[in-house]
């Protein structure tokens, strides 16, 4: 499903975020990308979602070379990828319901079907009773769960998460990690970049060290 073929990413002025990275992840796999801060984990996830383009090698998603995708094709790639960011990127000018609604509005879902899906996603992360609340009133763990609900509401085949448990206390982090396991169990390909691999037992692990894959 995902294949990195000797991928490198160099940011000006000559900083190698990733160098010569090759690996594969099959459909339905749970992949944990470990490594120290600055090892290139975020860059790796960004390359999969075409937020960044590689400066060398090829990133293949479902057989498509996403580094070479036309600008107009990128949105359709992203609609099949659920993204959870370290800084969540929630919109604070609208309530929980509307935050989760956004991907469905973008995809053009019928309002009734969309509302049903939004409530199902909020229910899944335990926030259904607060759909009218504003994100600012949520705790850190709740905001992270809201971000997960938004990432999965479109039922993507793949879920990418960048440090989803950073800044969370250990109990909350375990709760959030458990949600990823649930999605993996229903067949979603999950890739989590984390510094704390112990939270995600059972996943296949790859480690990055200064932009290179460590054995």
């Amino acid at each position, binding site marked *: 499903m995902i294949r990195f073929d000797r991928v490198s990413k160099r940011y000006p002025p000559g900083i190698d975020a990733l160098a010569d990275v090759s690996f594969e992840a099959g459909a339905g796999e749970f992949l944990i990308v470990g490594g120290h801060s600055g090892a290139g984990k975020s860059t790796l996830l960004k390359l999969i*979602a075409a*937020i960044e383009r590689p400066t060398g090698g090829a990133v293949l998603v479902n057989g498509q070379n996403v580094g070479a995708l036309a600008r*107009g094709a990128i*949105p*359709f*790639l*992203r*609609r099949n990828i659920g*993204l959870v*960011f370290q800084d969540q*990127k929630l*919109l604070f*000018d609208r309530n929980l319901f509307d935050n989760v609604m*956004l*991907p469905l*509005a*973008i*995809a*053009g879902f*019928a*309002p009734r079907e969309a509302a049903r899906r939004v409530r199902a996603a909020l229910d899944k992360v335990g926030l259904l009773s607060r759909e009218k609340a504003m994100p600012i009133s949520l705790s850190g763990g709740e905001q992270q769960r809201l971000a997960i609900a*938004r990432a999965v509401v*479109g039922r993507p085949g793949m879920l990418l998460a960048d440090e989803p448990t950073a800044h969370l206390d250990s109990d909350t982090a375990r709760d959030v990690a458990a949600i990823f396991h649930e999605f993996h169990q229903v067949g979603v390909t999950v890739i989590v970049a984390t510094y704390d691999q112990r939270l995600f037992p059972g996943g296949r692990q790859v480690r990055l060290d200064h932009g290179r894959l460590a054995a």
Partner: protein
Amino acid sequence: MIVWLRQHRNALALALRRLAGAPVNTLLSLLAIGVALALPAGGQMLYSNARSALPGLSASPQISLFMAVDAKSKDTQDIAERLHRFDGIASAKPVSREVTLARMKAGAGLAEVLEALPQNPFPDAFVVNPRDERPEAMEKLAAELRKLPRVEHVQLDSAWVQRLDALLRLGRTAVLLLALLLGVGLVAITFNSIRLQVLTSRAEIEVSRLLGATDAFIRRPYYWFGALQGLLGGLVAWAMVFGATVWLRGPIFDLASLYRLDFALAPLAASDAGLMLVLAAALGWTGAALSLHETTADN
């Protein structure tokens, strides 16, 4: 297709919410657009009123035809008959030299001078009302009348009509020029308000892109915003012109009646108002397009 329509409806709703969400900004923009459009629209209103008043003013363009002083009454009779058969002539009223002499003698001061003259200095004359009152047609008719035998002089009383006509054409050009300039102004106003909107919605645009939004999806609400702002500004302009029409109607009617004219100021024609609204919306859309080209091209 359904998806496309639904997304347009959503974008329209979003644009309306944004307009309503910043009422002071919206009001100021609408006033600026309204004033910018009211000037050419008001000009157009005055122009079409002047145009419609013109036939009333020029209902009496006439051609005066003077016979030679030594023409016999037989000649005059002859011409009278020919004028009667002329195609382009509605009516021709003969004014005999005796009548003219009598009228002139009745006038102050001239009686003694005329008494002193050995003979009647006035020629027979005709006052001709042409069928076609357009200046070109009247010129043509006058040229034909000049060719008639024993006709000394043909005078066209339409010079002032031509001057007025030229003046109105100048007015028309001025209105168009004004519309062009202020149309550019409208585009600039929209450009700026869209730019500010895009800047304040950076976060939303960024997140939407990460969630798979196409350029079209992101730009759609702004297009609607620009078009709506133009349209509403056009309505403000229409209201301003209408208000001015109502306000000016009384004084203008009074002025006209002093000149014994039956003239009431008409409001902007529905077709002109409709054209203005369509153009305003189109210009708003254009301003939005230019702004989006500038602000959302590369991210």
